[in-house]
C-alpha cells in the first residue's frame, strides 16, 4: 500500500510540475500569439486590397473567426468589408472564403472590385497534405489563375470550367474554387456586385 502511494505521488508530482510549467508559459505566450495572428491578418488585408488600386486605401478590419480545429465548419454568413480610396469612392470588397478541403478548412482572402472581378487573393490558413494540397499556399501553383475572373468563370476544368487544378490535389483546388465562387454569389445576392458575368 505504501509503495503504491509513493509511486502514485511521484507520478502526480511529475504531472503537476508539467502542468504548472505549461500554464505559466501559455499565460505569457497566448497574448503574443493572438497579436501576431491579428497582425498577419492585417498584413494580408493590406496586401490583397492593394490589388484594387494603388495609393491610400481605407477599410475596416475583417473579423476572421478563430477555428476550434483545422476541420471546423464555418458559419455561412459572410463577413465583408468595403474598400474605399482617399476620396471615399468605393473600389471593391474584401472577404474570406472557407472551403472544406482534404484535411482542413482552407481560408482564402479575396479582393473583388465593384464590377465583380477578382483582383487579388491569398491563402490565410490551410493544413492540407504537405507536398500536394499544401501547394495551394504557393500562388504560382494555382491561385494566380483567379485574378481577373468573375463568379461565372470560377470553375475547375474537370467541372467544365477553365481552371487547372493542382496536380494530385483536386479536392483542395475544388474546395477553394467553389468557396470563392459561393462568396462572390453571396455578394451578388446582397446587391454589392452585379450579376455573375454581367461585367463583360
Amino acid at each position: 500500500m505504501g509503495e503504491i502511494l509513493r509511486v502514485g505521488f511521484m507520478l502526480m508530482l511529475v504531472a503537476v510540475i508539467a502542468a504548472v510549467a505549461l500554464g505559466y508559459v501559455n499565460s505569457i505566450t497566448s497574448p503574443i500569439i493572438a497579436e501576431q495572428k491579428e497582425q498577419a491578418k492585417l498584413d494580408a488585408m493590406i496586401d490583397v486590397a492593394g490589388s484594387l488600386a494603388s495609393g491610400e486605401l481605407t477599410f475596416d478590419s475583417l473579423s476572421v473567426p478563430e477555428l476550434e480545429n483545422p476541420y471546423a465548419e464555418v458559419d455561412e454568413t459572410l463577413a465583408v468589408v468595403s474598400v474605399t480610396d482617399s476620396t471615399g469612392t468605393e473600389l471593391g470588397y474584401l472577404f474570406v472564403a472557407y472551403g472544406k478541403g482534404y484535411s482542413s478548412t482552407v481560408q482564402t482572402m479575396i479582393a473583388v472590385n465593384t464590377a465583380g472581378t477578382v483582383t487579388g487573393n491569398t491563402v490565410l490558413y490551410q493544413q492540407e497534405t504537405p507536398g500536394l494540397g499544401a501547394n495551394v499556399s504557393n500562388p504560382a501553383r494555382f491561385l494566380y489563375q483567379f485574378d481577373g475572373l468573375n463568379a461565372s468563370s470560377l470553375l475547375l476544368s474537370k467541372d467544365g470550367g477553365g481552371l487547372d487544378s493542382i496536380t494530385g490535389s483536386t479536392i483542395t483546388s475544388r474546395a477553394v474554387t467553389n468557396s470563392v465562387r459561393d462568396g462572390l454569389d453571396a455578394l451578388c445576392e446582397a446587391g454589392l456586385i452585379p450579376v455573375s458575368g454581367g461585367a463583360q
Partner: protein
Amino acid sequence: MSIAQDFSKGIMRENPVFKQALGMCPFLAVTTSVENALGMGAAATFVLVFSNFLVSLFRKVIPAKVRIPSYIVIIATFVTLVDLLMNAYLPALHQSLGIFIPLIVVNCIILGRAEGFANKNKVLPSIVDGVGMGFGFTLAMVIMATFREILGNGSWLGFNLLGESYQNQPMLIAILAPGAFILMAFILGFFNIMEKRKRGGAK
C-alpha cells in the same frame, strides 16, 4: 563507450530509421519534400536532446514502475512548450514547421531513446546520444525525401531540377502514400544488403 561513439552510432550503426525501424510514421508522412524533412528532423532533434537531458537528470528520482507515463508527460510537456514558444517568438519558423511539432509527441524515437539510453546513462552521454540519433533521423528523412521530391515533383529543396514539362506530369505516386511504402522498401532493402555484405566480409 566514448562520447564520439555515442554521437556517431546514431548516424549509421544504430540509425533509428534504417537499423531500428523507429519513427516510421513521420518517415512516411513528412518526407514529401526535402524542406519538410529537414524541418521535421530539426524539430525532432531539438526535442530529443532535451527529453534525453531531463530523463537522464531525473533517472534516479522517477520510480521504475511509472517511468513510461513519466517520460510521456515530460516529452509531451516539452513538445508543447516548444510549440508555444516558437509560435510566439519565431512565427516564421512556426509557420513552416507548425504542423510537425505536435507529431513529435508520437515519434517513438524520442521514447525509445529515453527508455533505451537516457535512463541508464549520465547526462552528457545522453545529450550526445540525442544529437546523434537526431542527426541520423534527419539524414534518413532527407534521403527518402530526395527520392520522393525529385520523382514526384521534379524538384529538390524547391529548386526545379527536371523542368516545367516534368512538373506538369510527374510520377505522382512517389509523393502519395503508396509511393512512400514502395520507396521505403527499396531503401531498407538496400541497407540490409549492405549490412549482409559487411558481415559476410568480416567472417
